Structures are given as structure tokens and as C-alpha cells.
């Protein structure tokens, strides 16, 4: 038996599968019966990697060879009907079961019919597999299509009665929307599995599956990868396709592609095919433009439109409407407007709109149609097709103009990202207000300034405990960015820097108890002056007026707080004004760091030193300063320094590096410091990465020292060198 960790259904290696470990663990726990309900619904936007997640789950369970037999099935448009899909379902089920039982994943690659699979089955499974095939064949002959489909789909549940615990994962359920025929595949599946008391997973597009069908399911919404994880994935792709990138283009790709993993891969494939690098904004946008004008991304969307409606004229009508929606200020239009401009029967129009919504080409809510403006790539694709196919603009001119637009947009995208990232997260912070009582000086700048400004954190925290003047925060039930309530507010503030929170003062849930907090983060290098505070109060009061908020509270946050005159003005309006420091303390006080996501970053330091000339001492002195700053004890600091010196010597001695540089990164988190030393040049062979006894005469102590002095040491071979990661925990130091 070959149980090497080769990929079975997964497309990515274990190392290459980043950012989904939490979801993978959830699925594995669910497979083992740890879910609250048998059914788990995975809901995702297109191209966010759900299929890979399920395939990785399959591989993990296959290699575990435990009691649970994994079964993964993905619907395809090419199935065309429920019957064909059900037939393939049964065949896949038998093939995967036999492969698992025989511990031979190669069976999955063979094209076996069901009779061959029955012969391959282990004797203990042979009887029930034969019976299953027999039943399906009989019903097929009787021409009872629904009975046949149900029999096929219930095969895993039948297997359960014979002692085989199958974990069913059915993917791409939204593809059933394209099936012809009267039988609803998903409904049949729901009917069968609603009676199941064994764990199973259904996955597909969130807008196709979310709805009445979810009643008896737990749901797991698959969100786009986090910024850092997408960056890691891009680095992996760059290495895989041998395409040069730099940190700037990596981040641009992360922002511009907004977690669309498939399209990111397309871009790297394109760069690889053209033998081009992606190490400048210009190169990125040039290859991106190629993708929009006839590349893989264009072909992907072409196929989506083709599948939704193959009629060219209908596609043109839709493209015109989408382009109009992109161009006008008020982005929502009535469905009736669309129907009047697309000459289709009612039923066909509804089908087309439903599929456009499922594929997230547009957003269909409450009889209103909205363009997916946040999807930059889709917007570019639509603009390109509109200009070429609807208004017949010259192709060279269109490509040239749009490429120029892409290039001008790139730094703007990054600027927006930086602003977003630096926002303090008022919306999230308001969201965790839950009737907590807080010291007034946490939110009232004048009190804070008089009593605590400039004091050390521990003194401030002690003072909070003793403070008698308290404020009870409201219980917040709903938050949104202010621009969502009042679009014109976008003219004065960036979306992320202002929020509105609806709630109740004392959780009495009466009209009198209702309250609204309207908050904004404002800029001022010094204490904000009265005029500035009044300007913002006026704007936020306008929001309250336009939204008919009767009982509201304004809260302004300025980096350095407010001048005495500004404070007086705020008090006259019963508004709160806080400094950024107060907000940081409030986040801590409310335990809201998790809610604010990864805004609070680990401390990271980087330096490059040349090899030789005792430069490791410079690195050692640097790490000493860093470790001192993060309260490591002198003994631990000495250990860290010695280990670092050894890592530097290791890099200098063994690498034959041509650039003679040692790259160092020191990452400090709450409980540890992680030191990463890397160099280019000859790599450490695997055997040398193992525990080494000092048997090289008197030399060879370096590894032993590093491993003894630090809590964790990891050696990695990179494509062109070696990387050593060493961790020291604060509790041990």
C-alpha cells in the first residue's frame, strides 16, 4: 500500500494550502460527528477555494484510514440532467469507497464501470455493493427516473446500514441550476439527506444555497482569504511558476484581486507563458490587461455569460445594463427596468437574473438590481466588452486607454487599502458595546487629559479600577458604515472611518430606550480645534436628520484628542470626544481585539547584515534591544543572542553565498519572539537538518546550541538558500 502524502483529490500540497486551517479543522471535526446537526452547508462567493478545501478534507480522511470513508462529489454543468448527475454520483461513490477500502488511491484514476468496481470491492463490501447496483439497474429498466435518482443518491446512507460510515461532501451544488428536466436534483438530495443522522456537507455558491434549503443545516460561510494569507499564496504561486514579484506587487495583487484565487492563478500562468515577471505595477497591469482582453479571466467570464444565455443579443442587452449600472451614481435599479430592456419571456428573464445573481455578476435584492462594484475585475471585464462590442470602439484605443486607467488606479487602490487598514475600526468597536460600564475617562477626553495623559499604561489601568465616575455603554444591535445610511457622507469621510450603531440604552427595548451612536474618526496632528469638531458634529447631525434618528449620540475620535474649546463645544452638544490612545485602551478594556481583526499587528523588525567581520554582533545587539523592549529577562536575552550568533555563523560558513548577505527578521508577539535568519546560496541538506551530535571533531556545536537555547528551532530549505526560524517564549524567559 502506498500511503505517501501525495495529493489524491487535492490540487495543492499541504504546504501550499494556506489560510484555511480553521475551516479544515471544522470539516474534520464535523466528519467525526462533532457538529450540532448532521448537515453542514458551505457557502461561498465564486472562486474562493471551497472545492480545494473539500478536496483537502478528502485527502486528510483518506490518509487517516479511520472508520470514516470520505466521499467527494462535485456537480458539473456537463451533467446536464439530474439523472446523469445521479448516475455519476453512484459511480464515484463506489469508486471512492473501493479505493478507500483497498487503501489504493490509484483506483480513483482508473475509469471503471460499476460492475468492475463491484469485482474490485473487498469481500466484506461485495454483498451490499452488488445489491446497490442491482437495485439501481432494476429501476433504470423500469424507467422510473425519480426512483432511480433517489436510489443513486441514497447509496451512502444504504452503505451506512451495512456498517460503512461514509462522510459525504457534495460540492458545486449551484451547478444544478443549469440542469434540464423536471426533477430538481438539489431538492431530491435534500429530501434524502434530511433524514440522515450521519454528518455530511453540501457546498456551493452562497446565493444559490442560502435560503429555505438551509433550515436544517449548520452553515459555514467561507470568506475571502485574509490579506496575509493571500500574500503567502501569491508568494507560493510566484515560486511555483518562477515568476518574479516584489512586496509591492504582491500587495497590489492581493488588493486588486480581492481574494479571487482562481484569477490570481490565471495571472501567474499568463506571466509564466509570456516569460514575464510581475515585479512592477506596470508589468502587473499589462498582464492583467491581457487577461481582461481575451486572456483566461475574460474566457472565464465569457463562459459564465455563455452558460447563462448563449444568445449574443441578450448578452449585449445585459452588458449594456451592467455598464450603465457601473456608470451612474445611484447604483440600484428596479428589476422592471431591466426586464423592459431585455427581450425575454418572463420565465427566461427570471432564470437569467437568478443565474446572474448566483454567479455574482449582479446583486438582486428586494426587486432591485445592483452592480457588484466591489468586484474590480468584473467591472473591468464589463467595461472592456461594452466598449468593444456595444459601442464598437477601436480595440487598440480601448486596450491602451484601459491599461492607462489600470495603471493610474493601482496606487489609488493601495492608498485606499492603507487608509482602510489604518482606520481604528469604529464599526467593529461599536458592535461590541453591550451595556458594559466603563470609566468615564476612557471616552471623555477632558477627563483623560487632566488625570491620565502621559501616564504609563499600568498606572492608567490602576486608575480605571478606582474611578468612580462611570458610563454605561448602550447595547448595540446593528452597525453599518455611515455611508450605508447616508451615501452623501462619502463626500466628507472615507467609508471605514465613520459608523452608525443602533441599539438600546438599557436593553428595555422600548421607544424611549432606543439610541443611535454616530461615530467618526477625524484627522488632526494636534488636539482638534473647536472649528474642526463643530464641522464634524454638523455633518454627523445631518446624518441623524436625514435618517430621522431622534435620540442619538455623536462620538468623535481625533488622534491627539481635542482642545479645551473643542471639548466645551462637544459637551454643549452632549457629544463625546476621545483620543486615539483612549480608543486603544477602550479596545483593551472591552476585550475587543478579536472583533477588530488583525488591525493590531505584531511587532516586526527586519535587517540585512553582510557576512563576516563579526557582523553577527550587530544583529545580536539589535535583538538585545528588541527583546529588552518586550520585557525578556537578561538570561533569556543572552540565550537569544547566542543562538542568533550561531545562526549567522551557520549562514556564513555553509552557504557559499554569492551576495554575502544575512537576512534577519524579528517578530515579537504577545508571548514570544520569532527570529528568522535566511541566506541565499548552498542549501543545508536534509541530513544536516536533523539533530546533530558534536561529532565533527570539535566543531558542530552550533545546532545543539540553537536547539538548547531556544524553545523551537526549524530549518527550512528555500528555493535558493536556507531559512532558520527560532522561537523563544516569554514565559520561559
Amino acid at each position: 500500500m502506498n500511503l505517501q502524502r501525495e495529493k489524491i483529490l487535492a490540487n495543492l500540497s499541504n504546504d501550499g494550502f494556506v489560510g484555511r486551517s480553521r475551516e479544515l479543522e471544522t470539516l474534520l471535526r464535523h466528519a467525526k460527528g462533532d457538529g450540532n446537526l448532521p448537515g453542514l452547508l458551505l457557502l461561498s462567493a465564486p472562486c474562493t477555494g471551497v472545492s480545494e478545501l473539500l478536496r483537502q478534507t478528502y485527502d486528510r480522511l483518506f490518509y487517516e484510514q479511520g472508520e470514516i470513508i470520505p466521499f467527494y462529489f462535485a456537480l458539473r454543468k456537463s451533467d446536464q440532467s439530474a439523472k446523469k448527475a445521479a448516475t455519476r454520483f453512484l459511480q464515484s461513490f463506489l469508486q471512492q469507497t473501493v479505493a478507500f477500502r483497498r487503501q489504493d488511491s490509484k483506483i480513483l484514476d482508473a475509469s471503471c464501470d460499476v460492475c468492475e468496481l463491484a469485482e474490485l470491492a473487498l469481500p466484506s463490501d461485495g454483498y451490499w455493493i452488488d445489491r446497490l447496483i442491482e437495485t439501481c439497474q432494476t429501476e433504470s429498466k423500469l424507467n422510473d427516473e425519480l426512483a432511480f435518482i433517489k436510489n443513486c443518491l441514497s447509496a451512502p446512507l444504504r452503505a451506512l446500514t451495512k456498517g460503512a460510515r461514509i462522510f459525504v461532501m457534495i460540492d458545486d451544488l449551484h451547478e444544478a441550476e443549469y440542469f434540464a428536466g423536471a426533477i430538481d436534483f438539489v431538492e431530491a438530495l435534500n429530501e434524502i439527506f434530511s433524514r440522515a443522522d450521519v454528518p455530511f456537507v453540501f457546498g456551493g455558491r452562497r446565493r444559490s444555497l442560502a435560503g429555505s434549503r438551509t433550515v436544517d443545516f449548520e452553515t459555514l460561510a467561507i470568506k475571502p482569504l485574509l490579506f496575509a494569507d493571500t500574500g503567502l499564496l501569491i508568494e507560493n504561486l510566484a515560486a511555483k511558476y518562477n515568476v518574479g514579484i516584489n512586496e509591492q506587487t504582491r500587495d497590489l495583487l492581493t488588493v486588486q484581486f480581492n481574494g479571487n484565487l482562481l484569477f490570481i492563478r490565471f495571472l501567474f500562468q499568463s506571466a509564466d507563458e509570456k516569460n514575464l515577471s510581475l515585479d512592477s505595477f506596470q508589468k502587473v497591469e499589462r498582464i492583467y490587461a491581457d487577461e481582461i482582453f481575451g486572456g483566461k479571466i475574460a474566457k472565464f467570464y465569457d463562459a459564465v455569460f455563455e452558460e447563462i444565455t448563449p444568445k449574443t443579443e441578450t448578452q449585449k442587452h445585459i452588458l449594456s445594463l451592467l455598464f450603465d449600472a457601473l456608470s451612474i451614481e445611484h447604483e440600484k435599479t428596479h428589476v422592471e427596468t431591466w426586464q423592459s430592456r431585455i427581450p425575454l419571456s418572463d420565465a427566461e428573464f427570471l432564470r437569467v437574473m437568478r443565474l446572474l445573481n448566483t454567479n455574482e455578476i449582479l446583486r438582486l435584492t428586494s426587486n432591485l438590481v445592483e452592480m457588484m462594484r466591489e468586484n474590480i475585475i468584473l467591472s473591468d471585464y464589463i467595461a472592456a466588452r461594452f466598449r468593444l462590442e456595444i459601442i464598437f470602439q477601436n480595440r487598440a484605443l480601448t486596450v491602451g486607454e484601459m491599461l492607462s486607467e489600470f495603471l493610474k488606479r493601482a496606487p489609488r487602490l493601495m492608498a485606499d487599502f492603507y487608509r482602510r487598514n489604518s482606520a481604528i475600526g469604529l464599526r467593529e468597536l461599536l458592535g461590541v458595546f453591550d451595556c458594559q460600564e466603563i470609566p468615564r475617562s476612557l471616552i471623555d477626553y477632558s477627563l483623560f487629559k487632566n488625570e491620565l495623559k502621559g501616564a504609563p499604561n499600568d498606572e492608567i489601568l490602576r486608575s480605571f479600577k478606582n474611578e468612580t465616575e462611570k458610563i454605561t455603554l448602550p447595547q448595540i444591535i446593528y452597525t453599518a458604515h455611515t455611508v450605508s445610511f447616508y451615501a452623501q457622507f462619502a463626500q466628507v469621510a472615507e467609508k471605514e472611518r465613520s459608523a452608525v450603531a443602533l441599539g438600546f440604552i438599557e436593553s428595555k427595548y422600548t421607544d424611549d430606550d432606543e439610541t443611535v451612536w454616530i461615530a467618526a474618526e477625524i484627522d488632526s496632528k494636534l488636539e482638534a480645534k473647536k472649528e474642526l469638531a463643530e464641522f464634524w458634529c454638523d455633518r454627523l447631525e445631518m446624518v441623524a436628520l436625514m435618517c430621522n434618528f431622534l435620540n442619538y449620540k455623536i462620538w468623535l475620535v481625533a488622534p491627539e484628542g481635542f482642545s479645551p474649546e473643542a471639548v466645551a463645544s462637544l459637551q454643549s452638544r452632549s457629544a463625546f470626544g476621545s483620543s486615539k490612545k483612549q480608543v486603544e485602551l477602550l479596545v483593551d478594556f472591552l476585550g475587543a481585539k478579536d472583533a477588530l481583526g488583525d488591525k493590531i499587528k505584531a511587532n516586526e523588525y527586519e535587517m540585512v547584515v553582510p557576512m563576516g567581520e563579526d557582523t553577527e554582533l550587530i544583529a545580536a545587539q539589535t535583538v538585545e534591544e528588541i527583546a529588552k523592549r518586550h520585557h525578556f529577562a537578561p538570561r533569556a536575552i543572552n540565550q537569544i543572542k547566542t543562538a542568533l550568533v550561531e545562526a549567522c555563523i551557520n549562514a556564513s560558513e555553509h552557504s557559499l553565498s554569492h551576495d554575502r548577505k544575512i537576512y534577519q527578521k524579528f517578530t515579537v508577539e504577545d508571548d514570544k519572539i520569532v527570529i528568522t535568519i535566511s541566506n541565499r546560496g548552498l542549501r543545508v541538506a536534509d541530513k544536516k537538518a536533523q539533530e546533530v551530535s558534536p561529532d565533527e571533531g570539535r566543531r558542530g556545536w552550533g545546532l545543539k546550541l540553537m536547539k538548547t537555547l531556544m524553545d523551537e528551532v526549524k530549518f527550512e530549505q528555500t528555493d535558493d538558500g536556507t531559512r532558520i526560524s527560532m522561537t523563544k517564549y516569554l514565559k520561559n524567559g
Partner: protein
Amino acid sequence: MAGETATVFADDYLNKLSGEKIERECRRRLESGVKTLIVNFAETQIINSIGVSILLGVIDAAQDAGAKVVFSEMKAETIELFEMLGLTNHVTVN
């Protein structure tokens, strides 16, 4: 040198260069008949593995010459490091 005892001072960073300097000095003293070799680490702040390997060479050379090696005025961190690597089994620590 006082009688058959000699003291050699280690630098603040005990690495290849300063280790070899100590080694040369120690060998010279051993050749002149010294029977007790004191290596003083009062100034030593940090030590690397190459420096340690050179000290091992000094210990071997002293044993061959029938001399005793004493490590003196070591900081706690230096003692810990030498203990970890087993050096203190072969020398006297003052």
C-alpha cells in the same frame, strides 16, 4: 606568569579570531612549562561555538602537557553555556 601559573585574558567576544589569540597564547605558555593555565573571562560578553571549539583544543593541549586549566571570573551566562556543552567537566571553575 607567577611560577608555574599563567593567566590569559579572553576578549569581550570569544569567536574564531579572539579564540585563536587565546589558543596561541596558551600554547606558548604551555611550551614554557606552565602547569596551571588560567583563562580569565571577566570581559567576555558573548561566546560562539567556534570559540568554544578552540577552548576545547586548549584543554586538550593542556592535558597533553600535564597542565591544569582554570576558567575564572565567568559570568553566569558563560558558566551556563559551558555547562551545557560539557566544558566545565574538564576544567576548574573559579
